[in-house]
């Protein structure tokens, strides 16, 4: 992405066209990421509720895909899962 020069920026450092968070890939600095064992999952949705970065998506009241480019590897989902359906694995750097 080409960065804007100072004259091109809106005054007051405001950000228009919000939200801009989808452009911000929070998953760039993780060392571990969740590996999802679908066969163990009861679809209680706790991990979906607890993930601080909205990585885990839900479709028809069931866990769908993990948007791993936003996953920062905190491990909360694995910790919260009551049936150990999520396992944290090292990310290859």
């Amino acid at each position, binding site marked *: 992405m080409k*960065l*804007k*020069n*100072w*004259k091109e*920026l809106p*005054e*007051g*450092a*405001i*950000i*228009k066209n*919000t*939200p*801009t968070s989808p452009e911000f890939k929070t998953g760039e600095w993780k060392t571990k990421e969740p590996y999802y064992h679908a066969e163990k999952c009861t679809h209680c949705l706790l991990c979906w509720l607890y993930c601080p970065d909205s990585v885990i998506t839900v479709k028809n009241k069931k866990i769908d895909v993990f948007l791993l480019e936003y996953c920062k590897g905190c491990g909360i989902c694995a910790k919260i899962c009551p049936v150990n359906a999520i396992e944290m694995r090292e990310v290859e750097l």
Partner: protein
Amino acid sequence: MKLKNLKKLALTGNEAAAYAMKQINPDVVAAYPITPSTEIVQIFSKYVADGEVDTEFVPVESEHSAMSVCIGASAAGARVMTATASQGLALMHEMLYIASSLRLPIVMVVGNRALSAPINIHADHSDAMGSRDSGWMQMFCENPNEVYHTVIMAVKIAEKANLPCMVEMDGFITTHEMEMVETLDDKEVQEFVKKRIPLYSVLNVEEPITIGALDLFDYYFEHKRGQVEAVFKAKKIISEVVKEYNTKFGFNFPDFVEEYETEDAEICVVAMSSAAGTLKEAIDLKRESGIKIGLIRIKTFRPFPYEILRERLRKFKAVGVMDRAETMSTLGGPLSIEIKASLYPLDKKPVIQNFIFGLGGREFSLEDAFHVIEIIENIKKGKKYDDVLYIGIRE
């Protein structure tokens, strides 16, 4: 020449500021009382209680919160005013930078007072000088009449520049000094300040925005560059608004500097705020004995009028700069340092003598002013002094 008969009221500096605020009728005032500017919000809160203004008055628990409320309200698009002094201004410090970088045109009246320790409630400019790099405009007034008119002009200047502005006066000397103030009608004030047209509003749901977001090595520098450009542009706005005000109401208020007896002067003294009054009197008397001295009073300290000062001061042989604050850098007072920097590019420049005076409200008497003038006159004749002289101190 006055264009009309203005209503004259005997008001102190604080009363003049509060009265101007009443006529401006801002949307929001958030404030915390502090000597010597307490009266401003005290009087204003009475206007609120008596239903004389439509203002939402927010009494907060600290100056930090006062400025935070002002920022929130201003970002929503409101016309916002407040007042403070000394430790209160110091407590607002971190929020001052947020107000200016979000480009919020808050107008704040400051009753300049010393900073602790030792604790002191009287006039000096230490509080204001602590905020000089915060991105706020700073206009220093000589007397209550100037305070009244500057508060009104500051609203328009701030809202056109989208930058916050402090209107400052010396604690007690001006905040509590009663003087004749020529006032405008409510309607004239309203017509002059008009309605605020904000740069943005966080309450505008049609165009949602984010303000004050995290801004790291990739954009922070560009945003600061844009901010300093806004301060540059504010200089033109200040000149235009002051000119419009003077023309409309028949005044002669200075935009950046006021000159007194400078035309044929060989030496000059530079000062801000109430000390200029004493110096004018001393200049009149000294001129009778043939000393050709003039005064330049700096009205607008931020943005700093270096171009004007470079131009106006170059012709003098010696210039004395009066600082009612210390920088504790050992280099002297802030005003003298900035004036020296302003004149540096000149090949031939006057000798600049710094005088520190009046700290903690120490009286600046007519005798002190004479003493200052005599020293500048001696410098003209070739006498040398220490870089920084302390006036009115027990040696």
